[in-house]
C-alpha cells in the first residue's frame, strides 16, 4: 500500500506538472514577447497609478488579471517572465492567494449554496487590503 500510494502520488504530481506546463509555457511566451513590444509600456503606463496603491509597478497588472481570470499557474508563468523584486513578488503572491481562479472557484463555492457575489467580494476585498498593507509595510522595512 505504501509503495502504491507513492506511485499514485508521483503520478498525480506528474499530471499536475503537465497541466501546469500547458498553462505556464504559453503564458511565459506571450508575456516575454509582449515585453519586446510597445504594448507592455502601454499597459504599464495605464496601470501605474492603480498599481502604485500596492507599491507595485504597472506591469504587475497583467499578473493580477491572469491569476484572477485564469489561475495561479498562469500568474506564476507571468511572474517569472517579468523581472520583479522579492518584495513585489510577495505582495503579488498575497493578493493572488486571496483572490484567484475566480471563475472556477466561484462555481465551486456556489455548489455549496453560499452566495457567490459575497464570496467574490470577500476575496477581492482581502486581496486589496492585503496588497495595500503588505505593500506599505514592506516599503518601510
Amino acid at each position, binding site marked *: *500500500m*505504501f509503495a*502504491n*500510494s*507513492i506511485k*499514485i*502520488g*508521483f503520478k*498525480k*504530481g*506528474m499530471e*499536475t*506538472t503537465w497541466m*501546469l*506546463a500547458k498553462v*505556464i*509555457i504559453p503564458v*511565459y*511566451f506571450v508575456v*516575454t*514577447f509582449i515585453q*519586446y513590444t510597445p504594448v507592455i509600456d502601454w499597459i504599464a503606463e495605464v496601470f501605474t497609478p492603480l498599481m502604485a496603491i500596492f507599491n507595485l509597478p504597472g506591469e504587475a497588472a497583467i499578473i493580477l488579471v491572469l491569476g484572477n481570470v485564469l489561475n*495561479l*499557474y498562469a500568474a*506564476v*508563468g507571468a*511572474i*517569472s*517572465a517579468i523581472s*520583479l523584486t*522579492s*518584495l513585489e*513578488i*510577495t505582495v*503579488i*503572491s*498575497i493578493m*493572488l*492567494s*486571496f483572490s484567484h481562479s475566480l471563475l472556477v*472557484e466561484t462555481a*465551486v*463555492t456556489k*455548489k*455549496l*449554496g*453560499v452566495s457567490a457575489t459575497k*464570496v467574490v467580494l*470577500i*476575496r477581492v476585498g*482581502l486581496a486589496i*487590503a*492585503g496588497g495595500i*498593507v*503588505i505593500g506599505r509595510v514592506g516599503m518601510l522595512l
Partner: protein
Amino acid sequence: MMEIIKEATLGSINSVYTIAIIVIPIMIVLQLMKDYNILNKITRPFNFLSKMFNSSNETALPLLVGLIFGLSYGAGVIIQASKEGNLDKRDLVLVTVFLAACHAVFEDTLIFVAVGANGFILLGSRIVAAFLLTFVLSKKMTSKHNNALDQLEVEKAQ
C-alpha cells in the same frame, strides 16, 4: 527574434522544472495522508477551531481537508458532510468563508516561493486574515442564526 524565443523557451522550462520538484513531492505526501486516513485521525486537536467559531465539530474535517488539499477537495467533503446532515447553514457559510480566504496552503505557498516570494509573510497573512474574517462573521452570524431559528419557532407556533 531568435533571442526572444530562446529566452522564452529556457525561462518557461526553468519555471516548470522548479514547480515540478515542488509539486511532485507534495502530491506524494498528500496521497499518503489520504490513503492512510491520517486526516481523520488528526482532526481532534483541531476541534478548538470549531469551538472558537462556535460551529459543530463536524466542521473540523472539511476545514482541514480544504486547508491542505484545496477548495475543490474541501468542497467535496463539505457536500458529503452536509448530505449526511451534520452541517447547518451557518457551519457551511463559516467553512466556505474560511476556505475562500485560505486553502491549499502547501501547494499555493510553495509555488509562489519557487518564483521568489517570502513564504512566511504569504502564509502568515492568509491564515491571520482567514481567522479574523471567520471569527468576526461567526460572532455576527450567531445572533442572525438564532433570530432565524426563533422566527421559525414563532411561525410554527402560529
